[in-house]
C-alpha cells in the first residue's frame, strides 16, 4: 500500500485532479470538439484495459480475444435499441443485459479452456475472438440479424425521457455538447469501475487470482477453488468489456464488425502491458498514453510530412500500429513489469534464471 502522507496534501491533490477532470471537456472543446470525442474514446479504452487487466493482470490468463466481449456488448445494445429490429429499449435495461450476455460469453470461453495456460490459452482466445467476429460478419443470411459487414446504424443514444445525451444543450449559460455529456457519464462509470477494481484487488477473490497466477497447483492445495475463480475472472473481465461495448454503441450510433478486429484486442493488451500488468493506475496510464500519443502524432506528423515532402509518406495509422508493436517489444525487453509496475508482478517478471533456458512452466 501507499506510504502514509500528509492527509491534507492528499486531499488537496484529489481535489485538484477532480477539478481538472471536471473542467477538462470545456477546455478541450475550446481546441475542438474532436478532442472531446478522442477523450471519450480514451476513457472507453481505459474501461476495456481495466477489464482485461482482471484477466491478464490479476489472474495471469493471457486473453487475446478480449475485444469479442466488447463486440458482444456493443451488438447487444445495438440490436435492442436501433431500427434493426424496431426495438428501442431504454439503456438502463440494455446495459445489464449486455453485461450479462458478455459474462455468459466469458464463461463459454472460460469453461473449455480451464486446463490451458499461457501460450495455449492465448491462441485459443485469439481463435475465439476471430470466430465471434466472423459470425457477426456473416449473420446477415439466411435471417438478417447483424446486417453483416454493413453494420448497424441509427443506434439510440442514452436517453432519459426528453433528456438525450447526444444533443447539445444550454446549461447555466454554458454550451454543453453531446460528447461533453457523454464524457461525464463515462467519467462516472470509470470511477465506479476503478473503485470496484481497487476493492477486488485486495479482496479474497483478488488474492485468489494472484495465487493462481503465481502457482496454480499451490493455489489449489491452499483450498482455492481454481475452477470457479478462473471462470469468475473471465466472466468479470467480460462484463466490463460488455458494458464498455454498450456505451461504445450508444456513443458511436453505428457499429460494424470492423471495429472488433484482432488488432483491437492487441491494442488493449498493449495498454495493459505498457502500463503495468496488475496495477490499476499503471493500466490507466498505459491506456491514456496509447490513446493520446497516436492522436497527437496524427495532428503533428501529418502536417509535418505535408510541409517537408509535400505528400503523406507514412500514414498516421501505420505509425500508430508500429508504436503499439514497439511498445510491446521494448517494454518486455527493458521494463518487463510496465511503466508503473505492480509490486508483485515486478518481483515475478524481473526474477530471471541465470542464463538458463525456460524449462519449467511458469
Amino acid at each position: 500500500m501507499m506510504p502514509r502522507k500528509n492527509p491534507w496534501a492528499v486531499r488537496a491533490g484529489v481535489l485538484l485532479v477532480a477539478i481538472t477532470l471536471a473542467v477538462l471537456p470545456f477546455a478541450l472543446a475550446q481546441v475542438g470538439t474532436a478532442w472531446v470525442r478522442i477523450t471519450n474514446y480514451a476513457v472507453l479504452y481505459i474501461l476495456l484495459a481495466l477489464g482485461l487487466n482482471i484477466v491478464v493482470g490479476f489472474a495471469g490468463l493471457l486473453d487475446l480475444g478480449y475485444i469479442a466481449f466488447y463486440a458482444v456488448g456493443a451488438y447487444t445494445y445495438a440490436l435492442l435499441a436501433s431500427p434493426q429490429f424496431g426495438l428501442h429499449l431504454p439503456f438502463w435495461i440494455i446495459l445489464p443485459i449486455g453485461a450479462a450476455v458478455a459474462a455468459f460469453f466469458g464463461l463459454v470461453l472460460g469453461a473449455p479452456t480451464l486446463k490451458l495456460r499461457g501460450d495455449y490459452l492465448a491462441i485459443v482466445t485469439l481463435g475465439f475472438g476471430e470466430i465471434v467476429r466472423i459470425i457477426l460478419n456473416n449473420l446477415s443470411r439466411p435471417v438478417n440479424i447483424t446486417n453483416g459487414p454493413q453494420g448497424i446504424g441509427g443506434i439510440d443514444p442514452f436517453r432519459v425521457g426528453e433528456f438525450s445525451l447526444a444533443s447539445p444543450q444550454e446549461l447555466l449559460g454554458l454550451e454543453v455538447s453531446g460528447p461533453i455529456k457523454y464524457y461525464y457519464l463515462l467519467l462516472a462509470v470509470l470511477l465506479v469501475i476503478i473503485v470496484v477494481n481497487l476493492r477486488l484487488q485486495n479482496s479474497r477473490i483478488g488474492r485468489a487470482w494472484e495465487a493462481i497466477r503465481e502457482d496454480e497447483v499451490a493455489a489449489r492445495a491452499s483450498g482455492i477453488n481454481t475452477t470457479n475463480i478462473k471462470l469468475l475472472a473471465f466472466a468479470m473481465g467480460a462484463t466490463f468489456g460488455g458494458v464498455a461495448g454498450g456505451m461504445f454503441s450508444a456513443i458511436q450510433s453505428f457499429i460494424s464488425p470492423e471495429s472488433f478486429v484482432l488488432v483491437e484486442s492487441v491494442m488493449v493488451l498493449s495498454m495493459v502491458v505498457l502500463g503495468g500488468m496488475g496495477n490499476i493506475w499503471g493500466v490507466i496510464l498505459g491506456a491514456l498514453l496509447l490513446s493520446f500519443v497516436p492522436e497527437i502524432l496524427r495532428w503533428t506528423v501529418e502536417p509535418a510530412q505535408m510541409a517537408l515532402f509535400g505528400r503523406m509518406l507514412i500514414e498516421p495509422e501505420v505509425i500508430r500500429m508500429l508504436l503499439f508493436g514497439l511498445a510491446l517489444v521494448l517494454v518486455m525487453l527493458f521494463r518487463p513489469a510496465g511503466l508503473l509496475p505492480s509490486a508483485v508482478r515486478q518481483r515475478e517478471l524481473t526474477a530471471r534464471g541465470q542464463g538458463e533456458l525456460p524449462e519449467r512452466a511458469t
Partner: protein
Amino acid sequence: MDTFLQQLVNGLTAGSVYAVVALGYTMVYGIIQLINFAHGEVVMIGAMVAFTMINLLAPAGMPALAVLLIGTGCAIPVCMLVGYSMERFAYRPLRGAPRLAPLITAIGISIILQHLALLVWSRNVLAFPQIIESRTYMFGGTAITNVQIAIIAICFAMMAGLALLVYRTPLGTAMRATAQNPQVAGLMGIDTNRVIALTFVIGAALGAVAGVLFGTYYGVAQYTMGSILGLKAFSAAVLGGIGNIPGAMLGGLLLGVVEALGAGYIGDLTDLCQYGVFAGTLEACKDGGNFVLAGSNYQDVFSFLVLILVLVFRPQGLLGERVGDRA
C-alpha cells in the same frame, strides 16, 4: 463423390502449404517452447519479396521457371535475415524470462513486421502475373492443375528434406538435444544459441518458400495474408502435437482437408429445407428454395474450431507427448 475427391485435392494442396508453415512453428516451439507469433509475417514477407521480383522480371521475357526461381531465391535470404534478427534481438535477451514475456514480444514483432510491410508495399494486393500456363488434368470427375501438383510435390520434398536434416545430420542431432535439455546439450559442447538461431533461420527459409507457393496458388499476396495463414498453420502444429515434426506435417495436411471438406459440405448440411420439420414450415423452402444456415463463408472458422477442440480434448495433439498445461 466428385465433390468429395475434388475438395480432397484442394484440401491437400492448401494443407501441404500449412504443413510447411507449421514446421516453422513446431521447430521453434520444440526447441524453446515459444509460440513465434511472428512466423506468419515471415511467410508473408517471403511472398511479398518474391512477388515483387517476379513482377519486375516477368515482362523481361525470361522463362517462367527462371523467374520463379529468382523470386524465391530472393525471398529466402530476406526471410532468413528477418528470422535471425528477431531471434537475436527480441527473443534471445528474454531467454529465461517468464513465459508471458517472449510471447508478448512475439505479438509485438508480428505487428511491427506487418506494418513495415504495409509501409514498403502499401495496402494494395500484389497480383501474380500470368507466367505459368495452367493445365488441368482430369481423373474421372476430379480436376487437378499442374500448379497444385507442383505445390504438393515441393512441399513434400521440403518436408522430407527437413526430416533428413533433423534425424540424419549432426546439426539435427544438436537440435534434438537442445530441445530435450538445453543445459546438458550445452555441457556436451553444443553451442545452443547457435542451434536456436539456426532453427529460426531454417524455419524462416521454409516459410519463405511456403509463402511463395501459397501466393502462387491463390494468385495474390497482401500484407495481411500472414496472420490468418499463420493461425491456421499454428492450429495445424497443435493438431499434430506441437514440438513434434511429423505431427506438424500430418496436422497441416489434415487441417487443409478438414477445411476444404467443411467448406464444401457445410452449405448442404445446414440447408434446413432438407429436414422434414423445417421444410413444411419455412417460407423460403417453397418452390425448391433453400434456407442455408451457414455457407462456405464460414471456412475460416473451421481451423479455429479444430484448434479449440484439439486443445480441449487432446491437448498433446495427435502425435505429441507434451501436454497442454505445460505451456
